[in-house]
């Protein structure tokens, strides 16, 4: 007992006060956010994504024309005409089409702008579906262990042994072509990646003493999974989800390019590129602009994902390894 009273309580209080003060301002999320803002790539990626979201929301205001409106028979407008920008010496009496017109004499710029909506939708929805199913499968596999784990993981191994795009093509063929079906196909093919991340987080946390303590206090399996295990699995999940959005946009565009995703006349970048690819040599702008749009969008999510990884993984921060 005496040793307790001898302990310099005031000093301890002082020390604690400091750390508690720090603790408040340094909650995990705030700390992460602060680290995130220090990552140049994350900031650039974030700004790009914010801009893309704004473009998607205000597409109707930004796009000068309706993406489906054609200008067949309009004076001085030709099919697959190159960009006409008044500031760059395009005659004033020609209507301005800053990215030219496509094979159906529609304004390419308006179509590219409207394509933003589809690509962002594709990214978020596809990854959303994959996360929900992947998390459930991964959590169940990791938490239950034994034959349940074994059978779930073997099935996922089979999915992983396929080249990503070939399996997605087969699934779309079963479901039938269309943007939403292509998204579903990409989501199904992405599930194993998320299931694996969640499973490994569950495995690493499952035996921790605070989980055992919860169990001893009578928490149910579901409560432990939701309250103790999933929050710990969240950081890696956020990172791969952000990078996953990039992949999903890229792969869905590839399916559309092959004619299996979005169908004409829908303004989807992959499909726009696919329908005009035979005209590459006569109208390169119709291949160039949608491709650049895909690249910028994918790049934005890749940059943010990289920054998030560095910010959320303290091990990397301490090792001084940054994959900017």
């Amino acid at each position, binding site marked *: 007992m005496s040793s307790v009273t001898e302990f310099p309580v005031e000093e301890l209080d002082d020390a604690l006060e400091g750390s508690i003060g720090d603790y408040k301002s340094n909650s995990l999320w705030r700390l992460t956010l602060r680290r995130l803002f220090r990552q140049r*790539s994350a900031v650039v990626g974030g700004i790009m994504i914010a801009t893309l979201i704004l473009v998607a929301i205000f597409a109707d205001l930004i796009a000068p024309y309706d993406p489906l409106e054609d200008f067949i028979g309009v004076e001085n407008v030709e099919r697959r005409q190159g960009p006409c920008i008044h500031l760059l010496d395009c005659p004033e009496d020609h209507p301005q089409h800053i990215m030219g017109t496509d094979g159906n004499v529609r304004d390419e710029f308006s179509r590219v702008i409207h394509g933003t909506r589809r690509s962002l939708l594709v990214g978020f929805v596809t990854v959303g579906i994959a996360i929900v199913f992947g998390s459930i499968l991964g959590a169940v596999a990791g938490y239950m262990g034994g034959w349940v784990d074994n059978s779930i993981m*073997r*099935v996922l*191994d*089979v*999915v992983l*042994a*396929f*080249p*990503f*795009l*070939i399996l997605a*093509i*087969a*699934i779309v*063929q*079963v479901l*039938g072509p269309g943007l939403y079906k292509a998204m579903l196909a990409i989501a199904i093919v992405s599930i194993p990646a998320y299931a694996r991340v969640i499973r490994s987080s569950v495995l690493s946390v499952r035996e921790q003493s605070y989980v055992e303590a919860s169990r001893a206090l009578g928490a149910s399996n579901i409560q432990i999974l939701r309250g103790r295990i999933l929050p710990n699995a969240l950081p890696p999940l956020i990172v791969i989800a952000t990078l996953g959005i*990039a992949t999903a946009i*890229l792969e869905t*565009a*590839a399916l559309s*390019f*092959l004619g299996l995703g979005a169908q004409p006349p829908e303004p989807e970048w*992959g499909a726009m*590129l*696919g329908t005009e*690819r035979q005209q*590459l*040599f006569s109208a*390169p702008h119709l*291949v*160039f602009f*949608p*491709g650049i749009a*895909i*690249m*910028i969008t*994918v*790049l934005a999510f*890749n*940059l943010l994902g*990289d920054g998030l990884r560095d910010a959320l993984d303290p091990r990397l921060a301490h*090792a*001084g*390894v940054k*994959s*900017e």
Partner: protein
Amino acid sequence: MIQYGIRRFVAAIPVVLGVLLVVFFLARAIPGDPCTSLLGEKATPEICAQFIADKGLDRPVPIQFLIYLQDVAQGDLGESLQFGRPVTEVLGERLPLTVELSLMALTIAIVVAIPLGILAAVRRNSAADVVTMVGANIGVSMPVFWLGLMLAFLFAIVLKDTPFALPPSGRLSAGILPVPFYEVYGWEIGETGVLSFLLTFISNMFIVNSILTLDSETLVDAFRHMILPALALSTISMAIMARMTRSSMLEVLGQDYVRTAKAKGLRQNKVVLKHAFRNALIPVVTVAGLQLGLILSGAVLTETIFGLSGVGRTVFQGITARDYPIIQGFVLFIAVGYVAINLLVDLSYGFLDPRIRLD
């Protein structure tokens, strides 16, 4: 090590069987039947009934699967519905192209990515580092199909009359007919059998074949046709590997033994290449192995753009034409290849780092 290899091989069998099972049922779940998609308007109900019965497609699917497994075990992958030829024959014709293309892409990726990754790590935060990493980020975000088209435009149109012009499609220029090396050497190969398959396979890798026959004209032509597709295909892998090399090198360069090596007065080059690089290689090799799946996915797109009849394009066409034997046979080969590459990667760990024991 051999024991480990055998155990891994045995463990891979269920995965390959699973892949076959999924492909088999997935292919048959695709709406429409092979008869209508192959014969089009000529497909009357009578002809189709006959066709379906001839190909044994009227039996219950599980029975078909068992028969197929039996055939595969005997090395018979069935007959293609589109081409009316054995799948192994089609595979022997088209797989070599994809193998050649993938190897060339992987080589380009490795040759460019590893030195850049090392440079970026050694000169961290320098201009070289920033440029490499920005380039890697852009590379990994680029759609393969778009890059392929842009490269074709640049090298076939913009640089048309310069020495840098490259053909935008096909495998060889018109008029160039490679002679299989076994004919040049006057070897007799049978119609069937493993040896015949192997020799045909090698002779269909035009670059390898022209080296074997010392045919420089075909070699240059085949090589020039392969540059653009390989370049397009390599970009993503290149970007991923450059980043991996950089972060792996950074981690190793911070280790005590590297400092010791520097303190001993060893030259920078020696420290980096001899002490650090070898230990930084393991994650890089892992990533390189994983690229195969990515490259095969990319091959579907690259082959479509550059008009090459390789594995990727054939599977895609097979899926569209409901050519079940082609889909099954090709995907089986891809899955086996994938498993084999992963095994090779794991076996290489022991070689790269003798501390790693595989058992």
